[in-house]
């Protein structure tokens, strides 16, 4: 099992304990998780993520067998194609983009540059990883006011081209259903969802989604270090009997680079 949604580095709005690769590897060991895709948390809030990507590659180098970098790339920044090629060379299975934080979701949709980026990313075999939210809306710092990734943004990216592969993290049931049933079957197959923010019993949103959308559209993700890595595992352990033996998508199924 691979956790596709982990990060290292500090968070601007609260103290996060031990957000470093050492701690991550210990937690993976404890939870029985084979490896992780790792982003650089501060980069989401930087204008230019280039320096953060360099830090990410350097920090993860000693853990190359276990932790894979997922750098952040701004498609409205000069030389983003070079950054994408560098990500591929560094062994990244995916790249991260933050449409609300970077102003790439005008009117709640997706900018032209973001759609072109999604296509280009897919064409070199990488997935594009989106973060619906970092924190619950109700606890956000007054400066953290950009809002969540919308269903319209995800749909626009899923429709951008056949090569696109999206991993949408930190979505809840409503967003997943809105997007999934708003896409053609071919477009649906371009989108994978992590389970970090989906509710379990008694409402049983995860079980319901497995029955309707299908478990193969979901991947394991925790949003560590912001959230407990025990959460997605607990959710899987509490699945309804009829879906208890369902299999998540293997991270390697997402795209060729994974």
């Amino acid at each position, binding site marked *: 099992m691979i956790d596709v949604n982990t990060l290292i580095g500090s968070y601007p709005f609260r103290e996060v304990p031990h957000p470093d690769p050492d701690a991550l590897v210990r937690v993976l060991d404890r939870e029985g998780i084979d490896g992780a895709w790792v982003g650089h948390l501060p980069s989401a809030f930087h204008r230019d993520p280039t320096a953060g990507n360099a830090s990410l590659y350097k920090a993860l180098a000693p853990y190359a067998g276990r932790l894979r970098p997922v750098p952040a790339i701004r498609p409205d920044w000069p030389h983003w194609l070079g950054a994408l090629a560098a990500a591929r060379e560094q062994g990244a299975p995916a790249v991260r983009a933050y449409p609300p934080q970077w102003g790439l979701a005008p009117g709640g949709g997706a900018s032209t540059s973001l759609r072109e980026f999604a296509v280009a990313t897919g064409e070199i075999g990488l997935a594009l990883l989106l973060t619906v939210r970092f924190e619950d809306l109700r606890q956000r710092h007054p400066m953290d006011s950009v809002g969540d990734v919308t269903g319209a943004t995800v749909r626009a990216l899923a429709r951008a081209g056949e090569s696109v592969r999206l991993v949408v993290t930190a979505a809840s049931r409503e967003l997943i259903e809105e997007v999934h049933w708003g896409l053609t079957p071919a477009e649906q197959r371009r989108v994978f969802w992590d389970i970090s923010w989906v509710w379990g019993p008694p409402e049983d949103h995860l079980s319901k989604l497995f029955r309707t959308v299908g478990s193969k559209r979901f991947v394991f993700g925790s949003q560590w270090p912001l*959230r407990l890595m025990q959460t997605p595992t607990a959710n899987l352990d*509490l699945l309804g009997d009829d879906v208890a033996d369902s299999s998540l998508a293997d991270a390697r199924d997402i795209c060729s680079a994974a």
Partner: protein
Amino acid sequence: MSARTAGVPLGGGGPLVDVHAHFHHARTGRSDWAEVNEARFRAGDRIGITYHVASILGTWGFSSPTYFPSPDDIALGNDAMLDLCAREPDRARMFTTVNPNYTEHACAEIERCRARGAIGIKLLASRRADDALLDPIAALAAEHRLPMLHHIWQHRTREWPSQEISDGADLARLADRHPRASFILAHIGGGGDYAHTFAAVRDVPNIFPDLSGSGVDRGMLDAAVDALGAERLLWGSDLTMCTGLAKLRALDVMGLSRDEIEAIRWKNAARLFRPGSFPRCERSSAGIDAARDSLAGARA
């Protein structure tokens, strides 16, 4: 994919009291109400919950707002909760839900349900926690040793629609006025800034936060223990039992002692509620202690 093992609770062995649970009934406007209730019991059995201490919030918005339930809807919900407890005497305990804007009705409901076995009082967000209208309710709570579970927004920075929210500081003012009453501060993971709550209630010893809510921020549980100590915390799940299970597993790896974990799992609840509220916990704990003593004796 599942890591279920027959006979071994997912949340670990030993008694476990969920101090923040909810159920539904036929007039809450959803056709799957019985299925949701059953899902709570089923998940509770898997996790290892010994008792669900639960409430029903009127009609959950169907015929009056969830957080401003009418007296009729409150009585309806309380009746359904009484019936459920009668059907599930070994698994369910009851908070009497009240709306303090109807003080006489609230006090009458507390007496009516207490006489039929309710062990606590549930306050929603119908009136700010420090409002004088809550005083007669808190006085009854103290008189009859009925802990009051109060819905809380962690750090109230603005008004939110559909509820008159309170935060830790609001509840602290009520608790200061009623030092003989016990207050359960709802869901530190249920939205808002829990760090504000810990500071607001740190010096108010009759407030006991529960850990429930969908929020599973890393550092939240550690900060709660650091600020308040394990003896002030209660385990609960509210609407997301998966996050409740995750927190149980996190408690196990935080470096807490066995006594501290047991306190959070059930002993603090047993101390707050009337003696005899959780007999299966007492029996189970006695059995575990005896087995442990026997093992220690054999090793010696």
